[in-house]
């Protein structure tokens, strides 16, 4: 039934997954570039941003057309709305990857400093969050999305610890202030990526369950009368 509509939905899904892949790859590359002090990789990230922006526009346009022409309701409407929101979050993830790459480019010119902060571990956690959020979208499974929401707390703690440690380092070793600042900003960017991954997970739950779980309000609260476990 409704072949054209179904094709439109499948197209939207495929495009969003491709964009997710691009964003995930951008973050991984930027983090790797930072860890390895790899200028070439930084440039790859900066060049990749254009493709992500184009993809964002195309997805929004397709979603808009489907809304206008096909009058979707219920699960289809939730899906399209979720896609537009995830689209926006993925584009921001791309922006954060660029920011990380820029910090990496700055760091390359400075002498190597041994900082007591585990950026690679944080990067791995954040990368896992993004991947799991996208998986939950591919599979349409709210449980996977729920897991992402829980990982956000871990990453937040990592960022807070990094801040404290790096501020202390900057006080004790003023000669590595710039490197410490770069590290601080990268930690901040990674935390932002984690927030976007969390948003994506919340949007997946909205699509799959029709429950609005944003801003940490529990589904059973009186603010949300729509929550039902249907699937």
């Amino acid at each position: 039934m409704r072949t054209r509509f179904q094709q439109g939905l499948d197209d939207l899904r495929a495009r969003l997954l491709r964009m997710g892949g691009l964003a995930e790859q951008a973050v991984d590359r930027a983090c790797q570039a930072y860890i390895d002090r790899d200028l070439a990789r930084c440039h790859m990230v900066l060049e990749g941003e254009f493709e992500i922006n184009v993809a964002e526009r195309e997805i929004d346009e397709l979603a808009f057309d489907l809304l206008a022409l096909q009058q979707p309701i219920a699960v289809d409407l939730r899906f399209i709305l979720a896609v537009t929101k995830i689209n926006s979050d993925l584009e921001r993830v791309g922006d954060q990857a660029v920011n990380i790459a820029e910090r990496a480019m700055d760091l390359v010119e400075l002498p190597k400093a041994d900082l007591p902060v585990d950026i690679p571990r944080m990067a791995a956690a954040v990368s896992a969050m993004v991947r799991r959020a996208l998986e939950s979208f591919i599979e349409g499974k709210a449980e996977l999305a729920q897991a992402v929401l829980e990982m956000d707390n871990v990453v937040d703690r990592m960022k807070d610890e990094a801040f404290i440690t790096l501020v202390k380092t900057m006080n004790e070793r003023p000669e590595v202030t710039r490197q410490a600042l770069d590290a601080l900003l990268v930690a901040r960017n990674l935390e932002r990526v984690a927030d976007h991954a969390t948003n994506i997970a919340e949007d997946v739950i909205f699509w799959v369950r029709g429950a609005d779980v944003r801003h940490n309000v529990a589904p059973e609260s009186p603010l949300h009368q729509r929550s039902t476990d249907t699937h």
Partner: protein
Amino acid sequence: MGVGIKVEKLNAWFGKTQALYDITMEAPANHATAIIGPSGCGKSTFVRCLNRMHETVPDARATGRVRIGELDVYNGTAAVQIRRRIGMVFQKPNPFPTMSIYDNVAAGLKLNGFHDHARLDEIVERSLKLSALWDEVKDSLRKKSGASLSGGQQQRLCIARALAVQPQVLLMDEPCSALDPISTGKIEELIFQLKEKFTIVIVTHNMQQASRVAEFTGFFLLGKLIELDKTEKIFTTPSDKRTEDYITGRFG
């Protein structure tokens, strides 16, 4: 003011074929309740059971309880009496072809013995105003026949005719399916305003119409009521998969 409709375990048959199975639902007063579902699901049959029009088909019968306000539709009162308290608008506009516009609107009253002419004038004017047709026909009330109006106007005439007997409940069986979008829009506007005074049950196969016009929506499938809930719930997060499959066009 309208009254609520309560239906309990309504079953209906055409001869040996059962058309409705144990329908239990409520349509609240002064609200519009839409009935949706694929062809042959029993939605028209259901609405016609509410005012016992179902019985006009030979070999048709219904069991169960229907209460319209204080009135028990199936126990005690004659079908003819019941239908005088419930207004009905049909799918294809059906004004009486040999009667003028005035006589059409007054038909429900005149044919049932009411002949006070002064009050009739008043009632006809009021009903035509309620159905937003007064301005278009006030100069040719007795000169033009009901059938000489356009489709949309004819349907509004039928609405005026139904309202003239001052029912508390208005049943509408796909009232806009034979009309163009502009006439449909006018009638939907009308339904919105009529809700203040009447309780409305509207059968429609156009889901966008149900979502525009009704506060509550019931989904029928193969003679059973699958789900009845607030319209925004049905159209954003329906509880039953069958409802969702139907409204998203997966079948039907």
